[in-house]
């Protein structure tokens, strides 16, 4: 059963991801007072890229060729492990928060290394910035998650989600602040304004893609949309598991799917509104923002020590 659930999650995430990035684009266009393309544009983009010829940098090596495939594979593993429809992880052996953080590090390692591998100045810059963002965000993520895990007594996402869902948290204020800090850290990880500008290529998130084209680029675009869905689901699984199935039967299963779709849709709508209402921060000032987020997670930990 859990194997079926894991496969289903992978399929859903793969199929839904372009829809969500398409919807985000549409919201952005509307908020910019543009007409914009419809929500299915990203499917068409991916299909078109698949049929195009691939152009590679002449100094690139196997790392750049392997990266899109590996990036997709990491997203598949993450989609198996992160609870979406149920509270418990479909594959508990992949459901530990430390495992998720380090699987994301695997994708980041190759993403950035491939950028350096192409020896393009722009891609390299983007790859480097991706790494720096990781350095600035990862400690916050870990501290917030550790605070929540200490409340729940386990670092397994299923156990943490269950504690929140049943209200069995000994320190509600600390959990709430951990949720805020983790949400902010996830937002940075999503690579949206004010931390990144997705339309401006050669920037943080899309910069490393400068040397990609054809099927590789299609695969990467798909995988990066998947990553957005996965990161949001990660947050929801731990801090907002409401609606997810505690015990699995047909009714709770359907409810779980509907609840997950709704939660993800709302989360991305909120993200889109925030993204289009703020200005982009200067890269050099990124540190001050991430310090503020880190401060929130420290505050959460302080409340945890006090026990409220």
């Amino acid at each position, binding site marked *: 059963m859990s194997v079926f659930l894991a496969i289903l999650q992978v399929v859903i995430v793969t199929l839904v991801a372009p829809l969500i990035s398409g919807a985000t684009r549409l919201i952005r266009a509307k908020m910019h007072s543009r007409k914009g393309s419809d929500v299915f544009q990203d499917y068409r983009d991916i299909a078109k890229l698949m049929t195009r010829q691939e152009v590679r940098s002449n100094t690139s090596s196997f790392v750049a060729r392997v990266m899109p495939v590996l990036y997709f594979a990491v997203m*598949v593993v993450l989609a198996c492990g992160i609870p979406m429809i149920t509270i418990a992880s479909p594959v508990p052996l992949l459901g530990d928060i430390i495992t998720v953080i*380090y699987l994301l590090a695997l994708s980041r390692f190759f993403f950035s290394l491939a950028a350096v591998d192409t020896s393009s100045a722009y*891609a390299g810059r983007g790859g480097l910035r991706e790494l*720096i963002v990781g350095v600035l965000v990862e400690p916050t993520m870990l501290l917030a998650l*550790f605070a929540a895990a200490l409340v729940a007594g386990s670092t397994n996402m299923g156990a943490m989600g269950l504690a929140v869902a049943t209200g069995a948290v000994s320190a509600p204020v600390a959990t709430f602040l951990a949720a805020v800090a983790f949400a902010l850290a996830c937002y940075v990880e999503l690579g949206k304004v004010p931390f990144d500008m997705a339309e401006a290529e050669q920037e943080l998130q899309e910069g490393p893609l400068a040397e990609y084209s054809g099927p590789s680029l299609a695969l990467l675009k798909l995988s990066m949309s998947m990553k957005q869905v996965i990161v949001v689901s990660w947050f929801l699984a731990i801090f907002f598991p409401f609606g997810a199935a505690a015990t699995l039967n047909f009714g709770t299963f359907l409810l779980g799917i509907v609840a997950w779709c709704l939660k993800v849709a709302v989360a991305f709508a909120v993200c889109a509104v925030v993204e289009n209402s703020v200005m982009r921060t200067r890269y050099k000032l990124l540190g001050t923002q991430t310090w503020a987020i880190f401060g929130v997670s420290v505050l959460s*930990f302080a409340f945890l020590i006090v026990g409220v």
Partner: protein
Amino acid sequence: MIISLFAASVVLSLLAGTLSIMLRARDAVAKGVGCWMGAAAAALSLVAGFAAMVGEGARASMPFLFPFAAFTVQLNPLEGVLVCVISVLALVAFVYGLSYFDEYPGKVGRACMFMNYFVASMLLVITADNAFWFLVFFELMSLTSYFLVTLEENPSSIKGGLTYLVMAHIGFVMIMMSFLVMSVKAGSFEFSAFRTLDLSPALASVCFVLAFFGFGAKAGIIPLHSWLPQAHPEAPSNVSALMSGGMIKIGVFGIVKVGVDLLGASGAQLWWGLLVLVVGAVSSVLGVVFALAEHDVKRLLAYHSVENIGIILLGVGVCLIGSAMGNLVLAGLGLVAALYHTVNHAMFKGELFLGAGALLYSVKTRNMELMGGLVRRMPWTAGCFLIGALAISAIPPLNGFASEWLTYQSLFEAAFLGGRVPMVFAVLAAVALAITGSLAVTCFVKAYGVSFSGAPRSQAAAEAREVPLPMVVSQVLLAAICVALGLGAPLFVPVMAHVASFTMGAPAIVAADGAAIQNAISGTAVSTPLIAVLLAVGALVAVVAVRCFAKGLAPKTEDPWACGYGSETSMEPVATSFASDVSMFLSPLYRLREVCTAACWGVAHFFQKATGLARWMEPQLDRYLVDDVAHGVDVLGGLAQRIMSGRMGAYVAYIVVAFVVFLVLAVIL
């Protein structure tokens, strides 16, 4: 059986060393004898170590040379782990040396001798179960490695060697004091007598802190790390692998041995664990921060050793916290994490140093800025280096991830079970580990990317050739071990759990469940083989999908895009690009280094002042006692100078005159 195998290995090492120095006149012969016999000895000790690691321990004792200290050897599981680590590294280092020592014409005999003696003394330090012999072999280990560091005899290696020697002896003195306190109390130099000691908490703390900083100096913990980035890069690369992968682990081993084993009966104090956690956290973060600023690939790796020692100490800290709390399962979890990271770090750091040696061999520089594009010239080295880089960055499913996951779990349980004070320390240590992890990713994207990716940035890099077969084989071997220890973690972690429970006399720790490693307390688990399988499946799906949808047009290659300008190699991201960005965000930490270095200089300066004072004190007596006499001699000398003209004829004349005078005197008297 285990002991005799071990003894055979040590004897063979000594024989190999002695023969290779005797055959030093012919480099090729000395190299063959030294390396092959050394490798054979390492294979023997590997078998002995492995048997000890999974077994129930063995010991032997005999009176030897000194009546007050019997020569006692113990090979319990804990010693077995270290013997295995050193043996594997020694084995590949000797195989590697078969080609690498060609870089040291005229010095091969010496290098082989010191390397064999170095390996033997490391093995003996680990197994010695007598404080006196432990110290003797510890000193031998420092001396033999000193001669390996200074093998090149250039100013930087002599300077690095001297720093190393001074630091090694500062550590040695502290360890000696700790052992002397225990031996006075126990009335014997035997460790078995130490183990039954019931010291007062204050005295036990003195012993532990002295031993912690003493062994810490050997391990390279942060305030005492300055020798590592100076000494390791100067040694031949296979010796660097042996030092960085093996020797500094003896520091960790010593800390565990004193804290858990020797002082076991006195009981650990909670603040020992907290101290170890703080030192570990600081070492891990600062180690990687300093590594990021390096352009010299071997210095970069040396700083990463500081980082990884810090990570190992986090596990040791949890172990001490657990034993202080009387929670042996928690202590066991910490010790398992520390031991597994010790093994893993030895393997991937050994691999990376061998890779750095291959770069040095082919490109003749350690400066990464002058490399680039080497993946096409040296594919084997590049592949192995990439595996090592992934492993050290704790990327799943490799071995570094398995042990760091265990470290996180042990920190989590220490925080969960330990009450408020351990919670604050353990959580901050976990945050430090997270910072370390993300910085390590950055650092190794830099190290691999700048050296192997992109276009060559120097003539030497453009013409580099893959290294000879023995060097390739040894790199591949260590890279394969890294993969095996990662994917096979569910098999190897229970062995570490056996070692931990044996060492602490604790009940068995359930560290694995089927194909997963698990946190014995909360039950949360991770399966590295499953991650590997799913990654492979995901990759396969992606490849098949691309094959199905793509039209199969042949890819074409172009210059990298440069906004319409011609692309040049000078546009590539280089080591400085990484360093400047990181230093922009982490500038306070780099300022801290300046403060630390200044403090180090302060210590050195203190010693200078002390010697200065001694130098000033010394002549005070002389002024009154000796100076008048000396002055008188001076005056006489001045007079004598008048008749010392320096001409041969004059001296002959003096001799003749003196002869005549004596003759006359003899006749008269």
